[in-house]
């Protein structure tokens, strides 16, 4: 193994890993439950749109809901059975609210859908066709964020990709699903990586793994074939939370700092999770859409912490049972890791595509006895912030609801890693304030855009009224002239003129009516084009909307 050079990123924490407890036994498949609950939104972007109806029989891998517009992902049936309902169900989301889901009653046959066919000669496909296959397989980032993968495989015409990085850092304590995947299925990851490389036309690939996972590093290294070693390198990175943050890992592996508020592709880098690479492999080489994933079920409240291969839609309670959870001991049930995950209100919610870990924490007297105190400006939070922000100032302005100032202090560079809140001696839930501020700002943006639209509509209407008034005056003037002329002639001519005027009015009215009919229901194509334009605008605003604040 040639040693990889690594760079260190600012801030961060040395945390207890608690990883060994859940890597003691190999990954086992969790049984398919009688009911699978599939939220229509398991990813960033628009919820998928159902294409099945209640009562319909479905097979494993069949599309249940299609992607809606560009930023979206389809949802597939994780097993065969019957669609029992399409209805609101509690979903895993910090808000604890319910959202539309497709519920499948499984039949135990696990019959695959005939459309699921492998595509081993993917190299013959051009990148855009390949991306489409990946899109249709419903693959989203499995590292936690759930951004549709095909979009991140599309660097766009303006960017060449030099380096494709696979993120196997898995820096959060307790989580080991990527570790186990790398240990047990390194070839799937490498094959997936090669497919991604083809789509991106990347020059070289790096797989970054924290050096607390020697087994995974050895497995990947051992699985590399001789001819792959020129383009793919497996690189240990020092264990330090959050080494798996996208920008932190890129810095650690390449020494390049992705510019504030920009995407990694700006510096010629694209970063995907190792689990996503394995999912891409399965979609291409086995024709399997994303219907299952590895989930770590762990924590002090589990008798048997372990990793399970779980069908998407399986209730969390099933996993707790498989890990021997002492449910009554659980004081906090977290989906995701302890640093960035969120608490679940119920174990009835399903596992979704982005669920990497179910963490059962038991009673912790420290937390109970930790009252929030005022900020003493000790600056600890700034010392550990990997984004080099000033969390205490962000907190101050977020609390004062000064949304301009909070953006001046680069709120949108905050990756919500939680380092600041972890070290804060005053126990201020800092990240909660940042999320709140972000949500507020997004809401304001939306309102503003709506208001802009309304204002424009209002202006259009005023213009139209003005124009119509002028047209009406013009018509009346002409009518009067006509009548005046007619009065001069004989009665027959007058009648004829009146008749003609009436006819003109009737024709015009008919014409107007027809036009109105044409305007109202837009064609499907028009609607889609409009929606796409709107989506692009939204993304633009989301990605670069703060640029005018940077200048300060």
């Amino acid at each position, binding site marked *: 193994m040639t040693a990889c050079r690594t760079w260190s990123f600012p801030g961060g924490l040395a945390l207890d890993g608690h990883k060994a407890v859940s890597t003691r036994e190999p990954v086992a498949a969790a049984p398919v439950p009688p009911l699978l609950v599939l939220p229509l939104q398991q990813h960033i972007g628009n919820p998928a749109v159902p294409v099945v109806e209640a009562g319909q029989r479905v097979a494993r891998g069949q599309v249940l809901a299609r992607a809606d517009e560009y930023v979206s992902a389809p949802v597939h049936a994780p097993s065969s059975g019957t669609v029992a309902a399409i209805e609101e169900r509690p979903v895993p989301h910090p808000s604890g609210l319910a959202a539309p889901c497709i519920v499948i009653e499984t039949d135990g046959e696990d019959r695959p859908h005939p459309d699921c066919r492998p595509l081993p000669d993917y190299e013959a496909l051009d990148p855009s066709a390949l991306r489409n296959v990946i899109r249709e397989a419903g693959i989203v980032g499995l590292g936690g964020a759930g951004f549709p993968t095909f979009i991140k495989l599309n660097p766009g015409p303006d960017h060449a990709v030099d380096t494709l990085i696979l993120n196997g850092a898995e820096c959060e304590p307790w989580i080991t699903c990527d570790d186990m995947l790398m240990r047990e299925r390194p070839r799937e990851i490498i094959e997936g990586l090669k497919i991604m490389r083809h789509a991106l036309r990347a020059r070289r690939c790096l797989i970054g793994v924290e050096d607390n996972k020697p087994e995974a590093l050895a497995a990947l290294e051992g699985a590399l074939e001789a001819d792959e070693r020129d383009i793919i390198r497996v690189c240990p990175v020092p264990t330090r939370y959050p080494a798996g943050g996208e920008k932190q890992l890129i810095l650690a592996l390449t020494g390049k700092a992705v510019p504030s508020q920009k995407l990694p592709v700006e510096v010629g880098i694209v970063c995907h999770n190792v689990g996503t690479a394995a999912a891409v492999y399965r979609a291409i080489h086995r024709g399997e859409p994303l219907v299952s994933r590895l989930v770590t079920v762990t924590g002090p409240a589990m008798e048997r912490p372990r990793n399970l291969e779980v069908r998407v839609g399986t209730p969390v309670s099933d996993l707790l049972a498989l890990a021997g959870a002492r449910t009554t001991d659980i004081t906090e049930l977290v989906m995701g890791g302890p640093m960035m995950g969120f608490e679940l209100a119920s174990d009835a919610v399903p596992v979704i595509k982005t669920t990497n870990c179910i963490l059962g924490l038991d009673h*912790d007297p*420290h937390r109970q006895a930790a009252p929030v105190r005022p900020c003493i400006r000790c600056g600890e939070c700034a*010392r550990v912030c990997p984004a080099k922000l000033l969390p205490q100032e962000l907190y101050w302005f977020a609390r004062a609801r000064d949304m301009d100032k909070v953006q001046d202090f680069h709120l949108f560079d905050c990756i919500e890693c939680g380092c600041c809140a972890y070290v804060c*001696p005053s126990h201020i839930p800092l990240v909660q304030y940042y999320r709140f501020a972000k949500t507020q700002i997004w809401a304001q943006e939306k309102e503003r855009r709506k208001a802009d639209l309304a204002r424009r509509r209002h202006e259009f209407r005023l213009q139209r009224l003005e124009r119509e008034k002028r047209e009406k005056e013009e018509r009346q003037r002409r009518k009067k002239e006509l009548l005046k002329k007619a009065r001069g002639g004989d009665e027959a001519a007058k009648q004829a003129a009146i008749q003609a005027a009436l006819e003109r009015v009737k024709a015009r009215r008919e014409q107007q009516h027809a036009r109105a009919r044409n305007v109202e229901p837009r064609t499907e194509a028009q609607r889609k084009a409009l929606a796409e334009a709107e989506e692009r605008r939204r993304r633009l605003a989301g990605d670069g909307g703060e640029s005018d604040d940077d200048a300060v």
Partner: protein
Amino acid sequence: MRFEPRHSSPHLAPAGNVGRLMFAVVAALVPGTAAAAWFFGPGVLVNMAWCAATALAAEAAVLGLRHRPVRPALADGSALVTALLLGLALPPLVPWWLPVTGTAFAVIVAKHLYGGLGYNPFNPAMAGYALLLVSFPREMVAWLPPGDGGLDLAAVLHYSLAGTLPPGATLDALTQATPLDTLRTQIGLGRPVAEAMASRPDLFARVGGVGWAWINGLFLLGGLWLLWRRIAAWQIPAAMLGTLGLLALGFWLLDPARYAPPLFHLFSGAAMLGAFFIATDPVTASTTPRGRLVYGAGIGALMYVIRTWGGYPDGVAFAVLLMNMAVPTIDHYTRPRVFGEEQGR
């Protein structure tokens, strides 16, 4: 099964708390305090006790009036630290109302009238000290000679409460100016530094004042422990002592007869106490890493200026208060560049 989400991420037990920080500071004060009590008698401890009792009572009273929970505030130890620092800065033989007035002002006005912990712009202990220095200059510069002045605890308590000394003793006979004060006066009279120091072996030791060098050395030790525990930011003491030392060195090299040597400055008065314990009060100091260097350097420079050319023998309190005022500006101009922010923007 249902659960009750209460916490936002992170879901780990917090790494520390304010109370633990403050008690670590108290622990770090112990060696220097012991030295001060050794050289200047039990009055040091009596003052600190007066200050601590006043601070806790004032804190509880104000929080009670503001309808805020009292217990966590007392438990966080911040009022106690304020009190101990003020107590340590006072002369060892003073009437009880001096520490009580100073501490009450520090806690009630300098801390709570500005909004309480975390909101006060001025270091409460130094605000209290400055008030006393301005209002009671005579009491505030009368120190006992090193070597306890022959008063035992009973005599000190008696003086503190009743204001009377044992028969035959007078305050003027017992007390004298500090080495810093003495040297300043002597230089003002045109005497060369070396001669002034040599003429008072009871006051001046090889590095600092007699006793004072020990006290400063032990506060330095406690301070270094705080840095090692990462409880105080290293930038402030480093910049403050560095600036004070370099300025002293420069002037001393220029004219050793008129300027005290750098080690004398570093090991006299409240130099070490100020650098490690007073200037590092997080609430009133700059919070950015570069800002802390500026802040510390500013205090060191002001301290040297006040000691050398100003009207007061020691400058820690005024230097800290002046730099407190500059903190918002310093913080504004020393914001760190965020991750990935382009150079030179």
